[in-house]
């Protein structure tokens, strides 16, 4: 079918979302809650576009294309809403470890400082209650990706939920149960999809907290998980010859980016002698 994007006719397929059609034609939209391997929840509203005939803006990450649809991705309305989404988020959470969001803020000219200092922010203590990953919900943008990854989109463990509501809504293990006492099986799939660093491997967190975070001394090595016959693809993230994080490519046909606790966190045996991991 044919649709029109900012005046240009482009081809799109039945069943595609607007975002997919945009990407297929070399265009894009900013996304925060969207992930290729998760069901779209369309809650962040970063990706909104204007569709002629529709009163409100529509989320391109889930809205399906229709023949002849006239879409505007760069109108004043679209730019203003996107800028406000980034600005509102940055006015309420710590974006220091959210590179995509920072990039969008610069691109759209978001200015969170104009709300002043006296505004409510998401105030949450760092939850550092196990050896594998930390939770810093003061950075959480409530994209729901971790809930989906822990639930029906990947892990089926259902250790996470959104709790409360409104500005007080939070991601929660249920009554704020410590991770070791919760349903969590430490697969780290939530950590892998988190776009803000609210969920972060403990080793990465310790490097950053100790002031020893040095991206220029980091590299990534691809390998295959040695533990079982599935053979998941792994990416070992290494700084100064120490692994601080393991991921899997989200386009891997074996894993879709998801791993189990062994592949994700069970790497200390490969570490040779040397400087011990930061405590």
């Amino acid at each position, binding site marked *: 079918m044919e649709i029109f994007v900012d005046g240009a006719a482009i081809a799109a397929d039945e069943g595609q979302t607007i975002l997919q059609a945009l990407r297929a034609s070399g265009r894009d939209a900013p996304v925060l809650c969207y992930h290729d391997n998760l069901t779209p929840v*369309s*809650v*962040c*509203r*970063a990706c*909104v576009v204007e569709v002629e005939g529709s009163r*409100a*803006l529509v*989320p391109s990450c*889930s809205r399906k294309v229709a023949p002849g649809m006239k879409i505007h991705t760069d109108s*004043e*309305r679209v730019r*203003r*809403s996107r800028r*406000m*989404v980034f600005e*509102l*988020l940055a*006015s*309420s959470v710590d974006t220091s470890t959210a590179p995509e969001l920072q990039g969008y803020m610069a691109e759209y000219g978001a200015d969170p400082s*104009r*709300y002043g200092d*006296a*505004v*409510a922010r998401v105030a949450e203590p760092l*939850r550092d*209650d196990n050896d594998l990953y930390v939770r810093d919900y003061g950075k959480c*943008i*409530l994209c729901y990706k971790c809930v989906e990854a822990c639930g029906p989109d990947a892990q089926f463990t*259902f*250790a*996470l*939920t*959104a*709790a*409360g*509501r*409104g*500005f*007080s*809504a*939070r991601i*929660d*293990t*249920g*009554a*704020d*149960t*410590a991770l070791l*006492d*919760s*349903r969590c099986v430490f697969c780290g799939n939530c950590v892998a999809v988190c776009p803000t660093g609210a969920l972060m491997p403990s080793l990465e967190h310790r490097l950053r907290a100790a002031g020893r975070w040095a991206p220029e001394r980091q590299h990534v090595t691809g390998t295959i998980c040695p533990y079982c016959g599935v053979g998941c693809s792994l990416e070992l993230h290494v700084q100064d010859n120490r692994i601080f994080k393991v991921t899997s490519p989200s386009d891997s046909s074996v894993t879709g980016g998801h791993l189990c606790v062994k592949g994700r966190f069970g790497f200390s045996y490969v570490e040779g002698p040397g400087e011990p991991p930061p405590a």
Partner: protein
Amino acid sequence: MERNPPSASAEAERAAVGAALARLGWSEAAPPRSELLPLLHAVQEEHGWLSRGCLHELADRMALPFPDVWGVASFYAMLRLEPPPAVRVQVCDDVTCRLRGACLDAMSARHGAPSRFQGHAYPHEDGSAAAWEAVPCLGQCEHAPVAVVEDRVIRDATIEKIEAAMNGRVPPETASAIPDPVPGEVRRVMRKGPSALARAEEMGSAALLDLVEKSGLLGRGGAAFPAAVKWRAVAGAPGEKWAICNADESEPGTFKDRIVMEEYPELIAEGLRIAMLAVGAKNGLVYVRGEYEEAARRLAATGVRVFRGAGAYICGEETALFNSVEGRRGEPRNKPPFPTEHGVFGRPTVINNVETLSNLPLLVLEGADAFRAHGTERSAGTKLFAVSGHVERPGVYEVPFGTRLGDLLNMAGGVWQGRRLQAVLCGGVAGTFLGPGALDTPLAFEARNVGSGAIVVLDETASLPEILARIARFFRDESCGQCVPCRVGTQRQLELVERIGSADVDILRDLAAVMTDASICGLGQTAAVAIMSALPLLDGARGDPRASDFDGRAG
């Protein structure tokens, strides 16, 4: 990091959950997820509150993950995740009760600061329960100010009455009857008449659909959507279908549906039955606002299936209501798909407001022409308005569409105490503020001033900034928190409105734009409308040309 250690009274908690399950008929099998909200109510009735232990036990018995149960329980203001004080005292601090002299300062002076649901239980700084709660509109605004002590509604509340009730010393209040109609009122819906069911059954689906289409009946819930369009879509859909009556009336200043439920419950039961016949739905239910206990009782007495909400304005949004019925958090869904295609339990669903359905018996009995004989060309029939605030006789008035706002106010006795009119909040907190110059405006859907049917009158002494701040807080408190524009936007809007100066108008306009344009649902999309409409009436912003050209859409 466990906030509450495992309860010492695990046995009592198990027993409470067991009793709740037994009461709802689930002693043996594990209940389906859709029983979650009814069971949470029942456990709270048995145990007094929802302790961690109760929720774990319930999750186990329902074979649900504990986080899911916690996520649902923490969503609703009526569900208590902390132990309540010995006597539960709730004082309405919403728009109408403030206007009518809610004794908030006196309560604070004598009983300390109130607790308030902040989207996650009622936090108490020292872990103890505050002596009283400030709550949003209880839907009893014709009796404002209103308080609730334990389960007793105190009308025309004073600190003396509240304290007497706290000490267990209040005579039972008699239910007030609906006053006789005043001149100008046309009571067509609000009356007891013969049953229309036999006639509806004779007519059958096709004739009922034609009748509703010919009548031009528009939904009374606020969106003014043609009832026939929804009905035909569901009637033509395959498979099992649902019809739902939306009785989650929770918008501040709105109490008309409560009156219909309490006084004319059989109208609603019949209306729902007629809708089910017309669309071919086997299943029907009425989703009643949790706080409306008396209304729920009277509806249930008609034999209709009643599902109780639990304190969440957002559940009046149709897709949030479906999620609530399914035992999920009351978060609205992205649309499309629309309810007519993918409604409750994924089935095609017709959902109509109480007042819409209450029009059906008279429509079936009298026909479309008699129905259209009242109202305007584009808004057929009569409309119930809930008039409250600074008028002599607050109450529900039924008038033909097209009635002038000034005439409606006169029916309610005009501005009280001989004072002058400052402003009218027309259509509820998602509606617009009109100045005294607007009294000639006809009330009709085409004039976009009907909204929820709430009309709140402010006399010259009212503090408009105080009322605006309360409205802003309402949206902040009731946002489901799912989408960024509304979750953060309503918080920022509240902060700005509390300090409003004309320098803030630019930011307010940006907030209004993103909330209106990019929110998922109607709550966020309308959260700025009343506030922006009031800016021209505010001293601080008066004369600022930017304040007056906002029409609810992004510029």
